[in-house]
């Protein structure tokens, strides 16, 4: 219960309706321009862009067709369940016929609004999400009937508190040590609790049959995702930004339709492999991204720089919870009975996750191994370690990752930035120097 002397919201001060509307509509207009601009830039780099990309361009409009669709489904009684990070068990949401949407914000302009109540040292993903809430910018956040908030980093922990004034918040408590038997037990209970909350909100029982269907749906999505990823292992037939966009739209699209569209894209790209019709020159330095989630649309700043740089780079893979980590791991079920399925869902979200919130006496081993494996599979020439100011866990783990990459003789560059457009010039200098270095190494 809140303290006696408190009334109203805990963090966000009341704003005049007029200010909310004015700020909201101007930021929305700016955001639509950024979305269009990003797509134009992707088209410019990838001259003969695959026709199947058009679908993902449309879904990438955060204020477009998909918003309308979700609104309509809500009107006929469907529930929308938002989530802040990839620990949320999507299979359970789908099994209750609810709509999962991720709510983290990639809007630079709303980070400035967040500054009104939080110091600038705080991670901009958090400040921006708060700012988006202040002016009701995010359709998916606004449409959510409840929000799953896994308490992974400090920023998200406090964000959950701020959002609790507006939406029912369902906390999840992921353990920070993975392989202790008691932490796994605790996590399984968390999954059970979330299942019950979803059932209560939706009024739909998550039956054995329903859960099996949703697990199979997500397995198909993973299969399509991996098919696309396989196409990124050879000479580029899809540029990094385009693949990133495809993967990120899975966070708010209808997942069955998304799967079908990804398969159509793969059909088209597989033909291009045969015809050697590349999206970038086969000698282009191959870059891996790791670090802070890179959220659409404004955070496309970094991949834009990489793929428009002189010399050019191509992002072939990432290790980010906004990208290649989302669908990488399928839920592995032994027997299609309820207890086994729930355990499998729980394990998939905990054990496979490489978030730097984890630790052990060997450090965050799973992340290190994930990065090493992908570097080999995707023939990565260099790694860009992206961190936004205030993203402490990723910033701290850099030194460890760099030591490993140094031993592998893989160059890594620590690219720190903010939710701002003003540092593009400085970043360009650094990104170009890094790509120049990778190119010189390829020459040797």
């Amino acid at each position, binding site marked *: 219960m809140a303290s006696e002397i408190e009334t109203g919201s805990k963090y966000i001060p009341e704003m005049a309706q007029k200010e909310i509307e004015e700020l909201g509509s101007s930021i929305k207009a700016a955001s639509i321009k950024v979305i269009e601009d990003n797509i134009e830039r992707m088209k410019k780099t990838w001259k003969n862009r695959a026709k199947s990309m058009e679908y993902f361009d449309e879904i990438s409009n955060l204020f477009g067709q998909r918003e309308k669709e979700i609104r309509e489904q809500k009107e006929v009684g469907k529930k929308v369940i938002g989530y802040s990070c990839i620990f949320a068990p999507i299979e359970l949401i789908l099994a209750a016929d609810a709509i999962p949407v991720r709510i983290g914000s990639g809007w630079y302009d709303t980070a400035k609004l967040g500054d009104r109540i939080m110091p600038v040292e705080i991670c901009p993903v958090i400040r921006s999400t708060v700012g988006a809430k202040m002016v009701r910018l995010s359709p998916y956040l606004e449409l959510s009937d409840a929000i799953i908030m896994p308490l992974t980093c400090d920023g998200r922990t406090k964000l959950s508190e701020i959002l609790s004034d507006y939406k029912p918040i369902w906390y999840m408590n992921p353990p920070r040590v993975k392989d202790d038997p008691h932490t796994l037990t605790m996590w399984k209970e968390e999954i059970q609790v979330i299942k019950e909350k979803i059932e209560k909100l939706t009024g739909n029982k998550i039956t054995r049959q329903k859960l099996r269907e949703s697990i199979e749906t997500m397995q198909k999505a993973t299969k399509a995702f991996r098919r696309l990823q396989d196409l990124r292992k050879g000479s580029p037939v899809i540029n990094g930004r385009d693949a990133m966009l495809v993967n990120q739209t899975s966070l708010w699209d209808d997942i069955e339709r998304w799967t079908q569209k990804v398969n159509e894209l793969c059909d088209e790209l597989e033909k291009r492999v045969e015809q050697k019709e590349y999206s970038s020159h086969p000698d282009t330095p191959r870059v891996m991204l790791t670090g802070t989630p890179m959220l659409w649309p404004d955070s496309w700043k970094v991949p834009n720089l990489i793929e428009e740089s*002189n010399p050019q780079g191509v992002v072939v893979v990432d290790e980010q919870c906004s990208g290649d980590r989302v669908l990488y791991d399928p839920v592995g079920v032994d027997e299609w009975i309820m207890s086994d399925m729930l355990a499998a869902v729980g394990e998939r979200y905990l054990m496979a996750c490489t978030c730097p919130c984890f630790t052990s006496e060997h450090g965050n081993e799973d992340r290190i191994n994930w990065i090493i494996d992908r570097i080999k599979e995707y023939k990565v020439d260099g790694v860009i370690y992206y961190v936004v100011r205030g993203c402490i866990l990723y910033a701290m783990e850099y030194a460890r990752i760099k030591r490993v990459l140094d031993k592998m003789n893989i*160059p890594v*560059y620590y690219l*720190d930035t903010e939710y701002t457009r003003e540092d593009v010039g*400085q970043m360009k*200098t*650094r990104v*170009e*120097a*890094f790509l*120049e*270095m990778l190119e*010189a*190494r390829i020459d*040797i």
Partner: protein
Amino acid sequence: MISAGIDMGTQRVKVAILKDNEIIAQSQQFSGFEPTKAAEQSFQEALQQANLSRTDIQHVTATGAGVNMAPFADSTISMMGADARAGTYFFPSARTVIDVGAEDARAVKCDEKGRMLDFVVNARCAAGAGTFIEAMARALEVELEDMGSLSLKAEKASTINASCVIFAESDVVSLIHREEPKPEIARAIFDAMAERIASMVHRLGINPDITLMGGAAKDVGFVASLKRRLGMDILIPEEPIFAGAVGAALIAAKRAGRRR
């Protein structure tokens, strides 16, 4: 083989002309409001020095923060790439190149052929760059040229915070209020700056030999502080301010050769 390098720095434009990889002309100008014009003038001056005309130059490579403003360039190279090349040109044993310019500082790790292997940039704050010395000289009411020799007279070391120019300036003011002698304060300023640069070098790993270039390499006070902080000697070319332009000209020579 005649090649040229243009370094479009934030404060000055530098031009170097090489003949068979030997420096035959160097010229500089303040960038001012029209860096392109400054570069043109500087280039003309260098041509006159070398008694050459524009058509004698086989390849021009531009570098520097204002690289896009270069009036004519056959190609470009990053500042770090130019640094690495220049470092090993002046000192074949150099494996770490530190470049402290007016607005930024960087450290580059390179191999024996002058190829960049890794780099760190201090782009967040001017406290690790040349203009910091300028601002602090103003606070102490000392000529910029005199800051270095003044600091060498210090008997002990005071400390200031150099995470930010503004904080550093207020720290300097409080040292003035404590009536610290000017040499002590001047040394504190160089020490703080050297500390920032040294931590940048440590992030790359210490790979001797270390060479220092850019305008700040001319400052005896800064050089003394940096040597102390790194605990080793630092190699400095005769005219460190032209190092970036020379690096670009070396790259230009290589590219011209490849083209033929």
